[in-house]
């Protein structure tokens, strides 16, 4: 009942651009990794691959969570920037004083507050998600800067958090394992549970979902809660990796997560997409930024590349959608 019906109309007239939008990312990721391994010096080293994993993990965890908001047809959650930083600062600042349990509880409370404010404004007040999450970003970062005094928090160098952050299973850091675990759990939630089904059906047709007797406001809050809890875990992972936390540490996460989601093939129009695709998008975006860094390409060019990548991905999605309508 709750299983996803894979909507694949048996038509032979599906255009190349549609095929491209569906499967292009597999080809691109494979080509990129191959090309990087062959042409880019230092890419295929063990040290570098561990590094890619380290950087991909927090962004990836944010992205797989935010996939829920995007699939529900609400564009994105910009406030993940504030949420990741909040979780990281709480994790280190609170655990230094009161221990890890209290830190997790406090961070969870913050995540729930974010999800409820965003979800109520978007789900019940029908406000635009971009504007709502833009304002909660500023409110959240403002509060964080005010409460933390803008200072940097350091964890004890031999604490459990630092050990987790430095821990590795072979070449794979624990943080990447958390990403894989989150992907599996969230893929299960999205594909196999009643909640996941409702999120997707909401993205396809909001009105029909509401008329079908679903409390759509609660579904939206749920989608934002998944995003907030993921952002919280990403904040923990980020705090563990550097063993420090500061309010500006997650700048750009909103955009990189969105890039990963869209490049993975999740549609910004809602309804279409998957968590596994987002993971693929994360790999693509992370490898791409790693290659740009290895090639000594400046930060400005990296931003341009990422912006162009998003533009290209949404353009392909929009064209495929139009081709599908015809």
């Amino acid at each position, binding site marked *: *009942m*709750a299983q996803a019906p894979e909507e694949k109309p048996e038509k032979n007239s599906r255009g190349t651009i549609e095929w491209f939008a569906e499967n292009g990312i597999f080809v691109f990721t494979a080509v990129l990794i191959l090309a990087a391994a062959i042409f880019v010096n230092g890419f295929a080293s063990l040290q570098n691959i561990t590094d890619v994993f380290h950087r991909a993990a927090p962004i990836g965890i944010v992205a797989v969570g935010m996939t829920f908001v995007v699939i529900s047809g609400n*564009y*994105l959650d910009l406030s993940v920037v504030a949420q990741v930083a909040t979780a990281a600062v709480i994790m280190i600042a609170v655990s230094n004083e009161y221990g890890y349990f209290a830190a997790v509880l406090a961070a969870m409370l913050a995540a729930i507050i974010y999800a409820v*404010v965003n979800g109520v*404004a978007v789900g*019940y*007040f*029908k*406000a*635009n998600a*971009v*504007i*709502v999450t*833009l*304002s*909660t*970003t*500023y*409110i959240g*970062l*403002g*509060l964080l*800067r*005010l409460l933390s005094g*803008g200072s940097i928090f350091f964890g004890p160098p031999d604490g459990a958090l630092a050990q987790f952050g430095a821990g590795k299973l072979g070449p794979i850091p624990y943080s990447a394992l958390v990403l894989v675990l989150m992907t599996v759990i969230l893929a299960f939630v999205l594909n196999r549970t*009643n909640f996941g*089904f409702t999120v997707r059906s909401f993205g396809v047709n909001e009105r029909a979902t*509401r008329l*079908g*007797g679903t*409390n759509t*406001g609660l579904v939206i809050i749920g989608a934002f809660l998944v995003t907030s809890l993921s952002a919280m875990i990403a904040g923990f992972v980020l705090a563990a990796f550097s063993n420090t936390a500061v309010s500006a540490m997650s700048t750009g996460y909103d*955009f990189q997560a*969105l890039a990963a989601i*869209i490049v993975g093939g999740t549609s*910004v*129009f809602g309804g279409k997409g998957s968590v596994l695709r987002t993971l693929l998008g994360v790999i693509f975006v992370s490898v791409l930024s790693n290659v740009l860094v290895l090639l000594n390409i*400046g*930060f*400005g*060019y*990296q*931003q*341009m*590349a*990422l*912006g*162009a990548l*998003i*533009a290209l991905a*949404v*353009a392909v*999605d*929009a*064209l495929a*959608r*139009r081709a599908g309508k015809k």
Partner: protein
Amino acid sequence: MSQQESIQLGGSDKSLWGQIKLTIARRTEGRGIALLAIILAIAAFTEPLVFTAYQITLGRIALIGLVALGLTAVILMGQLDLSVASTLAASGVVLASIPDLTLGIIAALATGLLVGAINAFGVAIIGINSFIWTLGMLFFLRGVALVLSDETPVKLTNADAGIAFGQPLIGPLTPRILIFVLVFILIQMFVSRVKMGREFYAVGGNPQAAKDAGIPVKRRIFTGFMISGFVSALAGVINTLERTAADPIAGSTVLLASFAAAIIGGNYLKGGRGSIVGTLIGAAALGVLQVTLTISGVQVPVQQIFIGLVLLIAVTTDPNNLRAVLSSIRSARSSRVKVQEPASEPNKSTAS
């Protein structure tokens, strides 16, 4: 009898009170005026300096408002332009990196027009959601600004011209304020008196109907985004001249403030309803708020929280949104009464 008649006629009531009611129902600036009145009252009691130092207050309003004016043209058509902040930064860098001042200003403004055209191309021709497309442009242009400036603020070659630009021109009014007033008058005339501008409302209200009525919807979208791009570039030029340097990451607070100004001013985000006057009122409210907070010595993070809160309240209390909330509550209640049994059954079977 006569009482009944007037009730029946409702909207076409000719009495003065009826006219006033009709005007109020038609206008969209209500919330903006209320907020402005509250903020002015608070400012008058706590920091009268806001009014005596009106030059600073006006300058702040012009700073927030200019980008918001261009943005309003886009919002009236039901689109968003998130790229305004980076357009401002990029055009500033363009101006500062060209030695000749006149040439630099022309190039900077052309940058704005180009960005507007690219935005409109994605929205109107490819058919991408404007929130996402302009968000992509926001980051792309930030990259452009960083690359052009080598990631450091660029000094204006002709610093004297910049310093002169910051001086009052007519009475106590600086060129920034005068340009703001001029742009306000131009865009206000454009959307209320010119046919092309009035068509913006039609495009925002119902694009399909506008198309059927013979309005070139795609061309209007180009016009709107190019107005927004041009005005953001103009703001970038003004900022760069006044500060005699261009900051490649400028404008992140402008993004929030300009959206807040347009939305508080009653511009409906789905398009078709709103006004340039509303945006001016919204910008005035925010400008006074910011100056009051600054003069009171409030820390920057607190100011950020205040403006974020104002934006959050503004976007959730849009009359159309409130109506949606009320109707959804009402329909939820009525559907629960009517179809109690069948509605609860599928829930049970799916909840596993």
